[in-house]
């Protein structure tokens, strides 16, 4: 005697959020039943294991049928097959596109290709995220990447419109797309301490300041606002202009002047002032060399590793506090404005604005 067929269909599609999460996390039906039993759901309504199994199977089937729609979330709202109230639709989409930070950290900056997909089982083993879930997340990244690749206009907005995601999630996806597109190196040992959210923040900074579509660029005419990949590629012109900043380290006078201005401002305000004074030149050279090299795609990829090696690590070994760092960078940036012979104020601000906030974000243990 066995149950041959067992279905339950509601006019309003019944979805249990807990089971949905288990499904998303890649649990098998039997494992999900186990988890639910441990969760104590059986005590409600005097359910038995069979009841739980039947319910879980039903829900899994429903989710599988919905999955196709979730691949293009806009369809979910005007499909007729499932009657799902709007706030549930939002939940379904949001959870489907949610990802594990540990997983995304592994693929961040990697090419979203078949090759990477083959490595997913290794990543699964490393992160403890089930392979099924890894695949879903990876496919989500790839899907979003493919769609926005062909679209004009602002990246975050495009993602939000096409995938009906929350602002936060759309920004995260923008970061993933941005990293994947520019292939930033994030996997090096020295970068391991950084979380996805650190990178996402930096990506946000880069997108909104260094790309073609970056806001506040009055020099760019309005029609230019709709070019392809405007948020995905860095502004080439700007990268070119960054070379001009080299004067700050090549011109001896300027370098000394800059140093004295910064030191005057900092004196007495921090315990690590002596260290700051001694390492000023090194640090300044580091930052400006990074800027000057950004025209090279290879060096763009190493942007974060360079920031860590050339700036963050020296500071850390000198035991700067985060406040010290803030103080230093603020004065370092502002002092350049007072330099009479330094003409590249706009580029300087655009560069240092981003670098400053990136370093703030990245300066932790």
């Amino acid at each position: 005697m066995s149950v041959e067929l067992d279905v339950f269909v509601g006019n309003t599609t019944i979805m249990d959020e807990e089971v949905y999460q288990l499904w998303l996390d890649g649990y098998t039906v039997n494992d999900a039943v186990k988890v639910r039993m441990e969760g104590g759901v059986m005590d409600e309504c005097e359910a038995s294991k069979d009841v739980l199994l039947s319910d879980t199977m039903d829900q899994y089937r429903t989710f599988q049928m919905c999955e196709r729609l979730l691949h293009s979330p806009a369809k979910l709202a005007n499909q007729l097959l499932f009657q799902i109230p709007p706030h549930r639709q939002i939940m379904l989409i949001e959870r489907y596109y949610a990802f594990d930070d540990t997983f995304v950290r592994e693929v961040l900056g990697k090419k979203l290709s078949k090759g990477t997909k083959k490595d997913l089982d290794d990543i699964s083993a490393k992160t403890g995220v089930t392979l099924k879930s890894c695949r879903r997340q990876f496919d989500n990244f790839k899907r979003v990447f493919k769609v926005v690749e062909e679209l004009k206009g602002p990246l975050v907005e495009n993602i939000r419109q096409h995938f009906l995601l929350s602002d936060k999630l759309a920004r995260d996806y923008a970061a993933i797309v941005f990293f994947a597109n520019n292939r930033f190196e994030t996997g090096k040992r020295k970068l391991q301490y950084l979380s996805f959210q650190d990178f996402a923040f930096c990506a946000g900074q880069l997108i909104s300041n260094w790309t073609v579509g970056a806001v506040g660029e009055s020099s760019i005419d309005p029609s230019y606002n709709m070019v392809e990949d405007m948020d995905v590629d860095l502004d080439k012109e700007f990268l070119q202009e960054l070379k001009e900043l080299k004067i700050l380290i090549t011109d001896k006078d300027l370098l000394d002047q800059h140093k004295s201005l910064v030191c005057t401002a900092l004196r007495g305000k921090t315990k690590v002032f002596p260290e700051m004074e001694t390492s000023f030149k090194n640090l300044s050279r580091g930052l400006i060399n990074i800027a000057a090299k950004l025209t090279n795609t290879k060096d763009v990829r190493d942007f974060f590793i360079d920031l860590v090696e050339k700036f963050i690590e020296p500071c850390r070994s000198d035991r700067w506090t985060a406040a010290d760092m803030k103080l230093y960078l603020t004065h370092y940036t502002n002092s350049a404005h007072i330099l009479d012979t330094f003409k590249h104020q706009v580029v300087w601000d655009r560069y240092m604005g981003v670098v400053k906030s990136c370093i703030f974000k990245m300066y932790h243990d």
Partner: protein
Amino acid sequence: MPGKLKAKIVAGRHLPVMDRASDLTDAFVEVKFGNTTFKTDVCPKSLNPQWNSEWFKFEVDDEDLQDEPLQITVLDHDTYSANDAIGKVYIDIDPLLYSEAASVISGWFPIYDTIHGIRGEINVIVKVELFNDLNRFRQSSCGVKFFCTTCIPQCYRATLVHGFVEELVVNEDPEYQWIDRIRTPRASNEARQRLISLMSGELQRKIGLKVLEMGGNAVVGYLQCFDLEGESGLVVRAIGTACTLDKLSSGSAPNTNTHMHPNTAPASNACNSPSKDGKEPVFVEDLPSSSGPPTPFRALPTSSSSPPPFSPSKPCSRQSSSSDTDLSLTPKTGMGSGGSAGKEAGPLRTLLRQQTQTALEQRGASSSGLLLNAREFPFFTLTSFPPGFLLHVGGVVSARSVKLLDRIHNPALGNTRSYKLLDWNSVTADEPETRDAWWEEIRQEIKSHARALGCHAVVGYSESTSICEEVCILSASGTAAILNPRYMREGCLDIGCTDHRFEDPSPPSCGFCHIPYDELNMPFPAQLTYCYHCRRQKVPDVLFTTIDLPSEAAVAGKGCLIQARLCRLKKKAQGETNATAISNLLPFMEYELHTQLMNKLKLRSMNALFGLHIQISVGENMLLGLASATGVYLTALPAPGGIQIAGKTPGDLSNEHISSIQKRINDTIAVNKELYQINPPKLFALDPEVFCGINMELAEEGVGSPIPEPRHRSRLFRSHSESSDELSELDLSHGKKDAFVLEIDDTDAVEDIHSLLIDAPPPTGFYSCNTENMPGISNWTSGVQMFTSVRVLRLSNANLTNQGLNKIFTDLCENLLKSFYFKLRSMIPCCLCHLNFTVAVPEEELIQVTVTAVAMTYDKEQTQEKTAEKPVNKGSLEAEEQLQFPLELCADSSSSNIQTASKISGVAESTNISPRAASVDYGSFADRCSTWLELLRLKAHTIRRGSVKTSRRTQSLAHSVSSLERCSPLQEGRSRSLRSSRSFGGSSVTVVKMTPLSFLPGIRIIKYLGIINMFFIRETTSLREEGGVSGFLHSFIAEVFAMVRAHVAALGGNAVVSYSMKECVFMENPNKNQAQCLINVSGDAVICISETDQESSASTANTGQTGGGGTDGAT
């Protein structure tokens, strides 16, 4: 040329990729009506084509308009090979044919393919221009409204109820035509879908014609069914109640002043005289023989049980089964009763009488043709009536007959005439063995049963079949009743002479319980007492009916679903042997089912069953019986006694064993009383002295016997060999009077008793019923969740016993219920209403159970409020006064009774509400509220309403609010920003609510748009790839729902009421990786609005309806 049909194809969306190379589709559309076809242009390389076609115009007879569906086929253009079909849409244009209903059909329809399911959607606009033709109603019946609802529809008033209408149409099943061997399964399925659509249209038109001839304008309680008879054809049949309905202007109260004339003058003759002839013989001849045994036996009054093989209860049977085949010489009725010793004379005489009577009536009928034939039966498919309409209820009447299908193969159905519809009424009018005649026979039987119960009408009438190979069981059942003569026209029913009782109007709260039959000439030995409400008339001790609980009825506590389940193995056999075997089994099954129902009713301490539906399903090697009903405690009826267990002989089983079972039973009864809050105001009504105002012995007596008459004992016998010897002994050992005695004489009986106790009560917060109204609950909130569930069990063990099978079947049903409770736990407190179980034996070792029901939330706190406001005074004088209220103001009694019940039970209830509320997951039920913000508002509203806030309640509110926060996926501010920033592509899908009930809580129906009657076939040759049988059926049912919703939305509606899934035939062949399923659904499409304009729960429901689009952001 009385009508012009116009159709416009606007656009398509989400089309499937038909061209692998380009990943696109070159779609065009064929629009077909009758024999005319139009085509749109090809819209190249698009999955979202915009055709925006011209108006395709069809000039057609209105007859065709009624019969034919508009057929829309979407195809993929292919230059080199044949065009590939993407899918089809059938649009029933009937709703456009009457003026009040929809004026245009416009919307997105799912494109359906029998192999692939839904493949995208198409936007279509359809209009009809009807010319004013004087002859319009001659051949067609445009304008007659159809309602599936089995009560007078909400926005109408019945000015006249004309009576029973029926019709059936027969055709060859395309699947069994020779051509089926060479055509594709798709073509075959489509032929079937189209044919059934045509047949339903024709059937509806013909019924409409009958209604017009009777002078009516509507059919209420329209029940259409398919019989897939296989080789011998396909029958579409329908019954309904013809009415003249007046549309109520909004706001005016529904008028209860309803007239009826089910039988007009000529029919009344046929009805009147034989009833006099027929009634007396039954009583005179049968009664003595039945009361023959000296035992003070009393069995199952007023309800019909099968003719049990055990003679004592024979006379109470108003049911019979027969196997009428050409060669069969077995008597028409009372097949099963032959076995009873010394009783042969009874059934034979009955048979003779019935045959003569039938002959008499047929003579009368044949002279005036078909129409009269229809009127001959004072049957009503309605299950609930306007107040005052229903006077007395006699009990359930039912009839079954077993037929052999291959015997009636009609030569008129040539196998090459594919789509020509043949009407058995016209073609084979003088052929005796038509299906019409079969049904006629059964209806006659029902009628005579009703008459034997002293009733002139049958209400809550329905018909059904079960087919296995060439054997077909036809069943009909209803409730014998007396309807108010004041609402009749010129005394057409045979009540004129009945007696004086009817002149004295009975109070509505108990009147329907009063016996309609003559006390001295009772059709069966029943135990009568004076009504516990008015004390003026006699009532039976138990009442079984197929109707809904009348709204004015006085009940105590809440109702509950009661099911009797039974399996009987039978030998595999062919033809006549098989039919005989089945008809031999039927009475035993009915008796068993009946015993189970009665026991379970007693176990729940209730005394009446409503909505009784007994289904017997036939398979190759077994018969399945399932009886479902809603049990309730009617305060007008005596309190049920307990159940007494007695051993056959003292030595048989140890006394401890018996007493332990007895204890369990008593405990269960006590628990159930608590659970269903049955605290009847029994003593006040009973005791004459109390009635006179003197307080005596208020609290002494327990469940005991309020019966003023000699003490009776009801007994259920387990076997033939039962004799009256043990009586005295029993009397000594069990002091309780009026107890129901269960005899334990063998292990089977022990098993039965155990299985009685297996039925688990629903978990806290849940109630269940199979009727329209849940007795004891009326304060519904807006949460509605309709669902369909199908479960198929494979019996692996071939050597099963009846007992083993029973257990398996019972567990199957119980587990289904448990699953529902679990799945719907987030709706607590809630009630599963209209639980409709259908059983089938699709293959030798398979049992299929299909359930459709609706879960509705109710406001538990409201009941609590009342408790808080009025403190409970149990057993005090004050309580007595309150309880006497219903006696004086009978009209209000039902509501006040509910209050009383809740008052008394309130204390116990409130203690367990807070932990319950804490675990409620409101967020997961969107039907209730579309966003959690609104929920908060709703919650706040509830708080406002509560005038008395106990700390406990506030606490529970806080709990539920916090649980909301937990389950809401987004923070408040976040969700706000989300909704404002997100667009859902501009298009919104109308939310369509569905319910098997005739109403939606808190929502008023303002317009009925027409009947939805759809038939779909789905087939797959890649079962595994579609997720196995469950995956296949799951998506098919979801697709059917989607198509129903789309059609309703296109008519401009936002809900389906009286929804039912009539058929769900599932066949599989896993070895071939194939499966097929047929589904037939029906219901009434309506437009409804929330009852209150205030910002309350109703407004939430409203937003839910408009949801999906930009409107959502605005809230």
